[in-house]
């Protein structure tokens, strides 16, 4: 178990290093950053000034090592646009994005797990078909469009919720619903197929042969095994949802990390962009690690080895 953990950790660190490098390379893709930063009306001197100010005149390797060295201690430099330390910016915005992600995941789990179980228990019935249709609809729904529709319906016509902005808990409801929609199909399908697999397994037949009650068969024997992959995928989905929050935060003008990233991209504020990419990737890596741990904790076969 310990060696498994260490091995997983080593891989995670390697992945993090690779992403670090990639996020550095990403911002150098466009060629001369100084020109991008300076904007179209800048003079030659302006560009040179910017180049010197941000250390862009140094060799790439030096810039890279400098960035790695600073990033390792949480120093991502200073934003060009906000004139603030990038780390502070992200720290201010992160709670909003995390709240949104958790609200979204919560809604997604509350919807997908009961529906997935219901579909599995009534496999092949109209209930099952209906649930699968919901999954298909969820998969096909463009999140930004759904966001706009909800704004029109819940915000404008019914007036239940604020249309956009950051502040009270009410501001998280619509974005949370939209974000949940992106995770519901996957979680629902997984719950359903996991339950179907469990229900057709030999050990469920054994449980029936033992004369156990239906509740015990479903709730104790089938669900426990079906839940194992769902729990770990839920952690991974949270990672995807945080990554996908950029669209939703922009639609709802929710000032989280995603919105920050979008602003920075529009303003060519590359220190912020590369830092956000890195931080989201690190969170994802952490979540997959967590998923593996949850898996090991839930599955006695993994726990032992």
């Amino acid at each position: 178990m310990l060696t498994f953990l260490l091995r997983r950790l080593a891989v995670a660190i390697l992945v993090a290093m690779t992403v670090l490098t990639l996020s550095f390379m990403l911002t150098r893709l466009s060629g001369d950053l100084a020109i991008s930063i300076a904007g179209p009306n800048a003079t030659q001197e302006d560009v040179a000034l910017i180049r010197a100010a941000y250390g862009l005149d140094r060799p790439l390797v030096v810039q890279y090592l400098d960035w790695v060295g600073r990033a390792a201690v949480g120093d991502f430099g200073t934003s060009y646009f906000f004139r603030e330390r990038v780390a502070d910016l992200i720290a201010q915005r992160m709670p909003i994005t995390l709240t949104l992600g958790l609200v979204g995941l919560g809604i997604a789990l509350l919807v997908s797990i009961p529906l997935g179980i219901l579909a599995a228990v009534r496999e092949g019935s109209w209930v099952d078909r209906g649930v699968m249709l919901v999954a298909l609809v969820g998969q096909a729904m463009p999140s930004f469009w759904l966001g706009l529709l909800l704004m029109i319906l819940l915000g404008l016509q019914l007036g239940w919720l604020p249309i956009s902005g950051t502040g009270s808990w009410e501001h998280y409801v619509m974005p949370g619903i939209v974000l949940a929609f992106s995770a519901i199909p996957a979680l629902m399908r997984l719950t359903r197929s996991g339950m179907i697999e469990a229900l057709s397994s030999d050990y469920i037949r054994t449980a029936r042969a033992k004369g156990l009650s239906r509740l015990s068969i479903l709730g104790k024997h089938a669900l426990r095994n079906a839940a194992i992959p769902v729990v770990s995928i839920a952690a991974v989905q949270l990672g995807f949802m945080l990554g996908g929050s950029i669209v939703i935060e922009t639609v709802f003008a929710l000032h989280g990390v995603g919105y920050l990233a979008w602003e920075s991209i529009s303003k060519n504020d590359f220190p912020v962009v590369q830092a956000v990419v890195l931080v989201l990737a690190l969170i994802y890596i952490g979540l997959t690690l967590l998923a593996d741990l949850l898996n090991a904790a839930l599955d006695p076969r993994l726990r032992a080895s």
Partner: protein
Amino acid sequence: MTAAIEVRGLRRVFRVRQGLFAPPRQVVAVDGVSFAVPAGSVLGVVGESGCGKSTLARLILGLLPPTEGEVLVDGRRLSEMDRRARARLIQPVFQDPFASLNPRRRVKDIVAMPLVAQGSVPAAEAARRVAEMLERVGLSQEQGERFPAQLSGGQRQRVAIARALVLRPRIVVCDEPTSALDVSVQAQILNLLAELRRDLGLTYLFISHNLAVVEHVASEVAVMYLGRIVERNESEALFRAPAHPYTRALLASVLTPEPGLGVPDVGLGDTLPDPANIPPGCRFHPRCPQAFGRCPAEAPAAWPAAGGGFAECHLLDPAAPGAAPREALRQEA
């Protein structure tokens, strides 16, 4: 008589990696196996799951490289031949007729595959040989046009046999060829294999867990336990007077369809063999009902047994005090 196939000191160690920092564990699946099979005869290899008999088959077929040892066909080392030359000498028939045929190809294309792989057989010639082979294994031309999913288990195994024989190899390695089949179909396939061996002068290596089947088809039998051949002898001699306690236990547990005999007590304990943890001394001693002081301490030599074979057991050592093999036999009876 020259051996059609000879195996010398074959050994295969698997490294099971458990973690990045933990030292990999060694699993010795096949441990110093040697034998020679005369042309036209059948060597049966028997043993329980995990004894290394399937690994042995894969080593001989070149599907796995051996850690040590050599396989020779007609005195030539297989390791020094290219795969196409090897294919012309030795071919497999596998256990599961559902997994051994490519579901996306027609039967005639499956049977033709070895000819195509040779790269030198003209298409018309290949088609002729495929048709001939299909007929030989009892399949119609019409069945040659079908896909494997449209055939029964027995018919599929006939296809697998046709594919193995289309290159006219000298040796066929049959790895549990009838274990997935019903008894009535098993008999058909066993009869077919016997007929083909006689007609084509084939040599078989017949691997099975079913002793009754091995007794029926093999001229010589090797009993494997935890990677080693613990007893080898002429079929008749081995089944009449098994020398190794493990062989005796195996034979005792064969339930022949003879009513009234009840279920025998095989006298083996609950400890099951673990290839990752091979006991010191005689590897069978933890389960052996006749183990004595020497068994955990010292690996037994291969002592000659009646009938020209051998068994690796201290009880057969003429110098062993108070452990005559006769006594063991009486206890069994």
